[in-house]
């Protein structure tokens, strides 16, 4: 707490309506907020969120004469700069999710298949997907989070490492380890539970590689 006492004091003064503190806050933190907004949306689409954040930070006075400012929620567990980035990120994510909720789903076209359907193909795809689901579920939560950051959120290795509080090289190694573990688990399940041979397992993985599947399940999931 003591590490951020200066930030806490600045937040308290701003929340109390101290004009000089507010001017200092705007002068020091506006560039930071804009940089963070541009990191979220390079077309500067997030800057309006940053601007609206100022209004909530400045606060309004209610009928009882109490000033309501967003600064009241700053507890000093992090630096003020990090807290502002977190509030901005939260508002941005909620806005994006809200917008996606009202957008119509794209019309999916059935994939064109020129070849005759392989009778084993559907069974193979289903087997791999089931095995994969169980293998991912069996991972530690930290491994699942790392995989989610990298593959679903499409963060870079450096960004993934930042989230996981580890180096980029460690993230890379851990991702490779998790993928290897998943592959081993899938193969084991196919061999032991589904009683498939090595050739059939290879065919299974090849089938699922060719299968278009629910192409953008992520988008559907986020609806």
């Amino acid at each position, binding site marked *: 707490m003591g590490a951020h006492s200066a930030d806490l004091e600045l937040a308290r003064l701003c929340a109390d309506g101290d004009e000089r503190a507010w001017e200092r806050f705007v002068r020091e933190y506006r560039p930071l907020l804009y940089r*963070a907004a541009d*990191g*979220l949306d*390079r*077309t500067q689409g997030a800057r309006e969120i940053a601007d609206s954040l100022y209004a909530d930070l400045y606060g309004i006075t209610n009928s009882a004469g109490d000033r309501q400012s967003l600064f009241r*929620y*700053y507890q000093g*567990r*992090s*630096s003020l700069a*990090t*807290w502002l*980035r*977190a509030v*901005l*990120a*939260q508002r941005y994510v909620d806005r*994006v*999710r809200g917008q996606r909720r009202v957008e119509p789903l794209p019309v999916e076209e059935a994939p064109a298949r020129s070849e005759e359907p392989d009778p084993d193909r559907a069974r193979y795809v289903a087997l*791999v*997907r089931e095995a*994969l*689901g169980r293998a*991912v579920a069996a991972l530690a*939560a*930290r491994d*699942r*989070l790392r*995989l*989610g*950051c*990298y*593959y*679903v*959120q*499409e*963060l*870079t*290795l450096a*960004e*993934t490492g*930042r*989230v996981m509080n580890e180096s980029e090289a460690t993230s890379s190694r851990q991702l490779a380890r998790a*993928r290897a573990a*998943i*592959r081993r688990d*899938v*193969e084991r399940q196919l061999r032991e539970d589904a009683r498939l041979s090595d050739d059939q*397992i*290879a065919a299974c*993985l*090849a089938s699922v590689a060719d*299968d278009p*599947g*629910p192409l953008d*399940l*992520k988008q559907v*999931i*986020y*609806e």
Partner: protein
Amino acid sequence: MNDVPTRVLRETLAARIAPAPTSGCIDADTLAAWSDGALGARERAAAESHASSCARCQALLAAMARTAPPAPARRWWHAPTLKWLAPLAAAATAVVVWITVPRARPERTVPAAQAAAQASPQPRSAPETSPRAAAASAPPIADARPRAGADEQRAAGAKDVAQPRPRAAQTNAAASSAARDAAAAPPPPARAESAPPAAASDAAPGTLTFAAPPPAPPARRIEALRAQVLAKAVDVPTQIVSPNPTVRWRLVTGVGVERSIDGGMTWQPQSTGVTATPTAGAAPSPTICWLVGPGGLVLLSIEGRTWQRVPFPEAIDLTSVRASDGANATVTAADGRTFITSDGGKTWR
């Protein structure tokens, strides 16, 4: 055995994430404390456990990571490339010195006094002036250029591991460094340079003699060596490594674009629909890759396998590209101008 396809893994991971916020969602205060490393072990583990299965919280963490200020630039003397540059330059210097100096070395030595007595009218000035004169003329190059080369290397390496320049530049820098080092080194004795072979062989016993004809001027030999090194460097295909190092592309002159999904062990040719070979590229994700080349050539793949040509406003040679995703890219032309798109190449500014 085949690996589990990334797309299927991504779908499986996404399918395990709860789409709607739940009661344990991370608030801004916790998110900020997470980012600053201020969460206790137990609280952190609980937050990680929740985020591993919550779409909103994963998106929050991702957004937070993207808002992070850039890491402070590393000092040039801490650049990883320099760790390689020093021994590389030393090795190249040793090779050049080994090639040039031994042939000019006298077969046998003579006492210094005797050599001085037999030497031309400048014998005393030669040992004094030659090394120092060379050194005195060298500093502007020897001091400034290696640093500039190292900076170029560091900048290129920091921007994108896939750019074609770094490897050539590294070899180039090593060769240049070797050439400069050799130029700064003391030249062979004055007689080696000035006396014709006949005069040397006719010299009386006990004087300086040479086993071989005097070598070509060092500058020309070094230039030839540098050209050989560069020629080999140019033959190396440019590789574009995605954030997932197992997925990468390479640009092979006369062949085209090839892709590897096993870290470069095997390569599959890809059809780009154009005859020109791109010269540089950037892959911001394992499925997205931008390529640029001569005549305003810009190619984009958004799923890693097929390519579409992106219209470009000018038929100018493009030398490099930086991209953050399939929509945002910055292309640098041969004349140094940069062109930016934020809509996948539909418009450039």
